[in-house]
């Protein structure tokens, strides 16, 4: 009954209603991870490594154990040592053994802040005192922080059993390179031989943190019969259940995970750090345990995303057709394998139709915290290099940067290097709308420059569940299976209201716990509005079918004669004297027509459509301090159809702001001993309100996704892809040389300007 192309008829989709959970969030009632309190609850603390790399010789917790008020102490021996297998997590498959090892180290600590033990006590101050009393004897080992140093022969090895995958023949020596990822097509040397113009450069980015304002937090309660509950803020209650149950060796059905409100995640909450530790503590003492990270712990031991080193080289004709490109990408994985370098390779040239491509990626471990997914994992760094190089090409050719991109933009039918064929793409339309925008036509003042950059993200579907329950008075409750990280309750309720023909105020939405709704993948990959939304619509369609059946039986007419519109059943059979039946009328008599009206749908959604973004950044630089100020910014994006446009705009604005921070300020800074030197919001400088202008948005709805009932494409990740280069291109134009190393901190910019 619904397809992706019904824009004109929509009544709820495309409106801007107030989100169902809004009042709770503006009155302080919404319960986030750290807001739960249970009777008898204990406070937990974690003991962390002061070394970047060391062997754990001995852990002596006897003094801590005898401190009054200490109820439980755990180390890695309290985990299921046989835990194995993999689960689908933020950036792909994650080995459970490594997640466990990251939550509590066994043989070695691999970065400063790596957890080694935990305590639960009757008061946070006692827990803190107990942590100090735990004596860990370490044998310090040489460490390596930098990605290129980690790749060099003779570098200190993190894992003796790590042999580079993707290399043939198999290497006979272990290495810090976990994976070599090679992809490409065509005749790249040929393309460079016949090129009119070649641009090339080496680009680097620093490790940056997702920077969610809510630190990781959970409460865990072990039941005497093993049935346990975890309350936590995460991007996926089912993912948390799988990881915790496997790490602690318990059946999934014995663990209920109740999703708290989540105070930002951006990919960083698609794994666990505290939950298995808290439940292990609770198992030891039989009391509920709360664990909350400090901000310093968040920086030291969660997130971030990879810093990177990339070499890019592009061949083009003199009229601006890109004929070939080659690129090397080396991404930091942190202490365990699993950087998103393969996604960097796949996305690097995904905006452009390039015949000859050669990409090679290296996933490199070093003595840093294990990276976690961060919004379009792997793509922003690759786009920084490629979009900077394309800007360079535009300068060399004397071409308008948007025209150059239009000349090479993917159109439907183009083949991507990773195997997909471009479909329902509105990249060309997005470029054209930016070119036609007031922003692009506004001349720059003296001392200002404008950067242009594009970006791509796949967006995904996958497993999702949803239920629609009709109340006896004709109202509706939607149960979503995904934590609401940015307003998805609103979009779920809207899609249900649209399908049912109800006003939005008659539809409410809650998030189910792992025991109350079918399985769902995490809130990530820009999949919730697409995949879980599809499940919601299908459940609502089932409810409509049921309502029509009941109406037909009430009237004694043929089911085919029943029409459902605006929340009312009407009989099209003129021979029947049938008064229209409202939702309320049918619902109030549900007991007599077959019982409660409800439907639950679980699907594996296929047909997700990729998204494309184009950003404009106007910027000026204070020549005395080197500080860059963004003075005007526009983010345009191919969004399919915006279900709730205000929250879609919010995704574009938020992604742009994070990308601006990545470009200008944010970085992990390490000292000689492998110590992170800026583990606080004061020294890790994220954008604040006074750093940014208004961020204009252009929602391009030229090509709704035909595979979604209301045309939705994922929107959350694309907007962090273009800003790095949009900002850097503007800075480069002012400085007068290509700025290739992020962040473009005032000191770096000043040094570059001084050279000119």
């Amino acid at each position, binding site marked *: 009954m619904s397809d992706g192309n019904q824009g004109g008829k929509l009544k709820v989709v495309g409106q*801007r209603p*107030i*989100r169902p*959970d*809004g*009042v709770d*969030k*503006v*009155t*302080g*009632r*919404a*319960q*986030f991870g*750290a*807001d739960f*309190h249970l009777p008898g609850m204990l406070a937990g603390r974690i003991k962390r490594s002061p070394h970047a790399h060391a062997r754990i010789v001995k852990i002596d917790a006897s003094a801590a154990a005898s401190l009054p008020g200490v109820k439980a102490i755990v180390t890695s021996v309290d985990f299921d040592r046989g835990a194995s297998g993999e689960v689908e997590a933020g950036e792909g498959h994650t080995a459970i053994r490594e997640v466990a090892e990251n939550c509590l180290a066994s043989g070695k600590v691999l970065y400063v802040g790596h957890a080694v033990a935990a305590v639960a006590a009757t*008061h946070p*101050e006692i827990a803190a005192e107990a942590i100090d009393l735990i004596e860990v004897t370490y044998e310090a080992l040489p460490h390596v922080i930098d990605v290129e140093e980690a790749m060099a022969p003779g570098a200190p090895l993190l894992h003796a059993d790590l042999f580079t995958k993707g290399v043939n023949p198999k290497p006979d020596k272990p290495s810090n390179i976990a994976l070599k990822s090679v992809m490409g097509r065509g005749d790249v040397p040929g393309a460079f031989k016949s090129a009119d113009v070649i641009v090339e450069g080496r680009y680097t980015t620093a490790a940056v943190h*997702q*920077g*969610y*304002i*809510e*630190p990781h937090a959970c409460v865990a309660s072990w039941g005497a019969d093993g049935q346990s509950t975890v309350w936590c803020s995460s991007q996926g209650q089912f993912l948390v259940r799988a990881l915790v149950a496997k790490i602690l060796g318990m059946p999934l059905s014995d663990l209920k995970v109740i999703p708290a*409100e989540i*105070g*930002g*995640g*951006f990919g960083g909450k698609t794994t666990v750090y505290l939950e298995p530790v808290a439940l292990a503590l609770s198992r030891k003492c039989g009391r509920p345990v709360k664990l*909350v990270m*400090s*901000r310093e712990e968040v920086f030291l031991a969660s997130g971030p995303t990879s810093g990177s080193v990339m070499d890019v080289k592009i061949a083009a004709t003199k009229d601006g057709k890109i004929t070939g490109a080659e690129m090397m990408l080396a991404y930091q994985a942190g202490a365990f394998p699993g950087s998103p370098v393969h996604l960097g390779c796949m996305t690097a040239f995904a905006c452009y139709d390039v015949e000859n491509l050669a990409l090679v990626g290296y996933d490199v471990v070093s003595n840093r915290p294990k990276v976690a997914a961060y919004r379009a994992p792997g793509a922003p760094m690759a786009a920084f290099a490629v979009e900077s190089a394309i800007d360079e090409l535009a300068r060399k050719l004397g071409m308008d940067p948007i025209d150059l991109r239009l000349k090479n933009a993917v159109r439907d039918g183009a083949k991507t290097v990773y195997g997909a064929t471009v479909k329902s793409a509105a990249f060309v339309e997005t470029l054209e709308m930016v070119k036609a925008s007031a922003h692009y036509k506004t001349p720059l003042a003296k001392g200002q420059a404008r950067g242009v950059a594009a970006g791509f993200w796949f967006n995904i579907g996958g497993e999702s569940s949803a239920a629609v329950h009709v109340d006896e008075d004709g109202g509706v409750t939607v149960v979503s299976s995904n934590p609401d*990280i*940015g*307003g998805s309750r609103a979009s779920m309720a809207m899609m249900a209201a649209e399908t049912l023909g109800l006003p939005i105020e008659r539809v409410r939405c809650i998030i189910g716990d792992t025991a109350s709704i079918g399985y769902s993948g995490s809130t990530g990959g820009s999949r919730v509005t697409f995949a879980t939304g599809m499940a919601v619509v299908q459940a609502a369609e089932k409810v409509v079918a049921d309502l029509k059946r009941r109406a037909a039986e009430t009237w004694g007419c043929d089911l085919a004669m029943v029409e459902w519109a605006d929340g009312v059943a009407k009989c099209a059979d003129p021979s029947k004297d049938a008064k229209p039946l409202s939702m309320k009328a049918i619902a109030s008599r549900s007991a007599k027509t077959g019982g409660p009206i409800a439907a639950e749908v679980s699907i594996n959604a296929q047909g997700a459509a990729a998204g494309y973004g184009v950003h404009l950044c106007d910027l000026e630089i204070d020549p005395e301090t080197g500080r860059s100020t963004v003075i005007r910014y526009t983010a345009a994006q191919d969004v399919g159809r915006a279900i*709730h446009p*205000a*929250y879609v*705009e*919010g*995704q574009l*604005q*938020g*992604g*742009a*702001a*994070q990308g601006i921070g990545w470009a200008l300020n944010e970085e992990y800074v390490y000292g000689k001993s492998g110590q992170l030197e800026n583990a*606080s*919001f*004061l020294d890790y400088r*994220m*954008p*604040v*309100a*006074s*750093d*940014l202008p*208004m*961020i204009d948005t252009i929602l391009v709805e030229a090509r709704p996704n035909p595979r979604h009932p209301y045309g939705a494409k994922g929107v959350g990740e694309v907007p962090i892809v273009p800003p790095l280069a949009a900002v850097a291109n503007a800075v480069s134009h002012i400085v007068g040389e290509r700025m290739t190393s992020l962040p473009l901190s005032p000191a770096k910019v000043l040094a570059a300007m001084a050279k000119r």
Partner: protein
Amino acid sequence: MSRTVVKATVNGEPVEFLGGGGQSLLDALRDELRLTGSKEGCGTGDCGACSVIVDGRLVCACLMLAPEAEGKRIETIEGLADGSNLHPLQHQFLEHAALQCGFCTPGLLMASKALLDRNPDPTETEVRYWLAGNMCRCTGYDKIVRAVMDAAADLRQEKPR
């Protein structure tokens, strides 16, 4: 851990709690009084998620020791609405979709209230600089700034009545 009884007024009501040691006002609000609307994002006064108003001044509750609240008048997010009537700031944050995850929202609302209490007609720049102590990672601040400006206009219209 010597503790003393602290008497203060929170959202117009007299309260008593045990405070001491290294306990912050934020800890006291959240753990003793169970007013968990004020959030801890950093514990170092950098993120503003714990913003409350103490005797008319905007403070980070994580930077004030709990016993320092003795005799003080404290306003938190739980007291911003007048019963079931939302404050214009709350209303405009909802209208503008000025929150995504909502974690920084209580602090931003209290900081915005402190601004409008002293400056009923701020410029965009004034709003941005006043709110520079309140981090939001989701929104890019655009909708927040607009919501505060519109709430200021709403309040100016209400005043003469």
